[in-house]
């Protein structure tokens, strides 16, 4: 299907046209997830965090992906067992670019795939015995492992295995945390429940069963980075700014993170949270239990970075506030040069975004800083509080789509004709075939980091190289 000519479009009627293609029952259900943002809206007027409809080609993943792939997987000094059949761990093996520093296979295991590789007999007779053995073998072959997590795949919950009992027994035996996670893929409606389950497990099996490291000395400036998975090094280009304004980052959750950092987190003075969707649960828990305040921040694009640095600094004394101003001033000439270079090449370009649970709003101002315009945005697995947070980032008339289907996204793009589509790997080639510049906004399209001032320069460069590459100009044959 090819793109239509670029003509002004009535976005509401586009939604109605798209819905026409559905059988009636599904049409009614999908209608609740699509909307055009109204002026002064409190949220985006769409339903969210609801089951996907069978057969529509949802882009969503599962709870296992949310726990193993997102929250737990990046903890580098632990081994995460994909417990069940071989596939889940195979497909998620090293696919997410959560950068870390370590000796892989010796003291870090981030780019490896460990599985109990269930066979039919494990399904029939249960897999607990095998799990015992798996943990023994891991501890034996990888003596420097600091902890082990059990990431449940679908069959575990269906066949009634008692992974918690195994975890308790083995933890006592090997003297290291063994952490069972009930993140079977059929639970919940998307990755989101997997995030939540993973957060709860950290609460119950890390905070409640371990202590902060002996000898850890607190300072008044201790903060954490929560909800940054260090895609392409994002957490690093964020950390460096927090350190420059005089704070001490005692833990990274979970990109390039360690078990010790999780354990020491209750010692923080403030939890700073980037990906609200995947880790607000643990931040709220720490507020209740340890009285640690938390603050959301946004390190995409200079406007948001400066605002966030000031907000963060405001929680501390004047020395931090002064340093924050100094840091903002220090980076300003570089930011100005980046904008001077790229804005003329990107001004007025229209973008449609479809990503996970944070970036569909969080990256908006980075685009705005470059003079670009968001004409459509939506989330795979957001909840209502995300849509509430979205309204102030995007303007009236923006097309909003929740849990969009491949069919809908294709039709919306055909009708709205953006200059750039910013989504995931499954969407990338569909739109490139149509002749549309595309950037993967989960993996930064193998680039990054995009967080922080250093990341913004890369972000600007990447949007330029996508939109202004000559390949789009040779798409049509002259004959």
């Amino acid at each position, binding site marked *: 299907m090819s793109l239509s000519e670029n003509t002004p479009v009535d976005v509401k009627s586009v939604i109605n046209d798209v819905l026409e293609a559905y059988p009636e029952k599904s049409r009614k259900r999908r209608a609740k997830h699509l909307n055009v943002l109204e002026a002064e809206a409190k949220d985006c007027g769409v339903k969210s965090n609801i089951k996907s409809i069978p*057969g529509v080609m949802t882009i969503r993943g*599962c709870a*296992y*992906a949310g726990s193993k792939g997102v929250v737990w997987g990046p903890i580098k000094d632990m081994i995460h067992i994909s417990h069940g059949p071989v596939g889940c761990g195979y497909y998620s093996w090293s696919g997410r670019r959560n950068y870390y520093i370590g000796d892989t296979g010796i003291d870090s295991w981030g780019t490896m795939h460990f599985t109990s590789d269930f066979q039919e007999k494990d399904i029939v007779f249960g897999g607990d015995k095998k799990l015992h053995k798996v943990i023994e073998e891991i501890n034996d072959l990888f003596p420097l492992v600091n902890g082990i997590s059990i990431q449940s795949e679908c069959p575990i919950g269906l066949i009634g295995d008692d992974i918690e009992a195994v975890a308790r027994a083995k933890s006592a035996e090997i003297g290291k945390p063994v952490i069972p996670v009930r993140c079977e893929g059929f639970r919940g409606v998307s990755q989101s429940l997997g995030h939540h389950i993973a957060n709860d497990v950290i609460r119950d099996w890390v905070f409640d069963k371990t202590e902060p490291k002996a000898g850890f000395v607190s300072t008044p400036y201790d903060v954490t980075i929560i909800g940054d998975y260090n895609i392409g090094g994002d957490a690093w280009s964020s950390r460096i700014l927090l350190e420059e304004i005089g704070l001490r980052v005692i833990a990274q959750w979970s990109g390039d993170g360690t078990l010790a950092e999780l354990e020491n987190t209750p010692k923080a003075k403030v939890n700073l949270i980037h990906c609200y969707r995947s880790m607000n649960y643990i931040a709220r828990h720490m507020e209740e239990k340890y009285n640690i305040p938390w603050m959301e921040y946004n390190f995409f694009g200079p406007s948001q970075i400066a605002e966030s640095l000031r907000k963060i600094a405001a929680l501390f004394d004047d020395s931090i506030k002064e340093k924050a101003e100094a840091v903002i001033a220090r980076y300003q000439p570089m930011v100005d040069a*980046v904008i001077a270079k790229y804005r003329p090449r990107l001004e007025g370009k229209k973008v449609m975004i479809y990503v996970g649970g944070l970036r569909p709003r969080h990256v908006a101002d980075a685009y705005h800083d470059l003079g670009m315009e968001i004409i459509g945005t939506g989330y795979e697995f957001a909840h209502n509080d995300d849509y509430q947070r979205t309204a102030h980032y995007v303007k009236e008339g923006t097309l909003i789509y929740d849990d969009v289907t491949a069919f809908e996204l294709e039709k919306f793009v055909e009708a709205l004709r953006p200059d750039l589509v910013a989504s995931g790997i499954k969407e990338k080639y569909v739109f490139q075939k149509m002749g549309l510049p595309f950037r993967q906004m989960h993996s930064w399209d193998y680039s990054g980091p995009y967080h922080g001032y250093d990341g913004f320069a890369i972000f600007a460069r990447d949007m330029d190289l996508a939109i202004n590459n000559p390949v789009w100009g040779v798409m*049509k044959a002259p004959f």
Partner: protein
Amino acid sequence: MSDKLSQSADKVLDHFTLFRQPEYKAMFEKKKAEFEYGHSDEEVARVSEWTKTEEYKEKNFAREAVVINPTKACQPIGAMFAAQGFEGTLPLVHGSQGCVAYYRTHLTRHFKEPNSAVSSSMTEDAAVFGGLNNMIDGLANAYSLYKPKMIAVLTTCMAEVIGDDLQGFIANAKKKESVPEDFPVPFAHTPAFVGSHIVGYDNMIKGVLSYFWGTSENFDTPKNETINLIPGFDGFAVGNNRELKKIADQFGIKLQILSDVSDNFDTPMDGEYRMYDGGTKIEDVKAAVHSKATISMQEYNTTQSLQFIKEKGQEVAKFNYPMGVTATDELVVKLAELSGKAVPDSLRLERGRLVDAIADSHTHLHGKRFAVYGDPDFCIGMTRFLLELGAEPVHILSTSGSKKWEKQVQKVLDGSPFGKSGKAYGGKDLWHLRSLIFTDKVDYIIGNSYGKYLERDTKTPLIRLTYPIFDRHHHHRYPTWGYQGALNVLVRILDRIFEDIDANTNTVGQTDYSFDLVR
């Protein structure tokens, strides 16, 4: 804090160089020292050395339960791949929805192409009550939105564990008018806890054939001159299937590929997105029951399918990912034999050119030691080609490999003096291979992108010749089968060898004496 920033608008540094700047290096050091509570550098170095020893290898090979970096995926992705080789076919994966996101992602990352498949999106309630309603709605929605010519249903392990009955569910859905009664909905049960992606491939091929050909034995089907061919799960399918068609054209044979993804996984960029492209036509699948013979290019991908076809009265022939001169000869001879046609001169010429190229380059290949891993058929094909080049396959490993496969590889090794240091390892994984390479070194590794970690650990150059290849582009567009394909494989191996020689001889004033212009 110096005033000079590393980052600049003039020369934007991304992750390649940004994190090597001093301010980041200092930050990493500090994080490690103050917050990570890791092990001492000495302890890490000690354990690292220990993992390279014979003692560690023994421990590693004594493993019974944990699998580490396997060379296999699960059944459904193979079944999905097989289904996507039929015209206008949309796979519907019955079970949890996350699986489909994974399969689509994996295939897309390799082929750099869109990949379309839907899920019946079963959740907790379906786990309790079964997924019948998901099937009914799923078929109806997929049919209305994506206008396929066929929907091929397969299962995730969730649906298999709760025991959903595809045949009954699909019949029920048709009664509810999800799709028209005569709309083709073949299916395959593809439990992830049995076999691997190659078994899933087999199951789906058999599922599609059974749907169109009927299920029972029927030896008296009238036969024609067509020869069917089943390629198997193949990351190089785009180049390979096209090469097979060229070979058949040269012969003047009517070749019917059953499941041909070559066009679907290689669509042009011309402004139009083709959700479906090419593939084996449904009419041709129906007609293929009358073909006189069926060739399988990958025995271990087609065990049940070939048996089924045999029961339809066809002659069947099986190969093991034939690569190189003699394996291609065998394919060509089989085509001549089955068709009753003489081998065309053009193929004789291609063969001669391949042998010529090997002769030109043999000095760089002779005696070089290789580790090979991948699917069982690929390993056999690759081993044979290496032996033919005078290279020595040493470690041949496949997580999907059986005892029978090990014997088959051993037989191949026994057939050549270059095979005497070779051994097959079925059911083993890439962590085993790491131990093997550390304790019994090889010059090169042949495998896929996952081998890059082995390359880094053991400092052994990797040649990517099998699925998945995520970190190099477009190789799958070139064939590895046929004489032409063998030439491509030869060049890929040679290029890596020469790059390796250059990389080890390029320090001026120290190792530059072998940095030769002419080789």
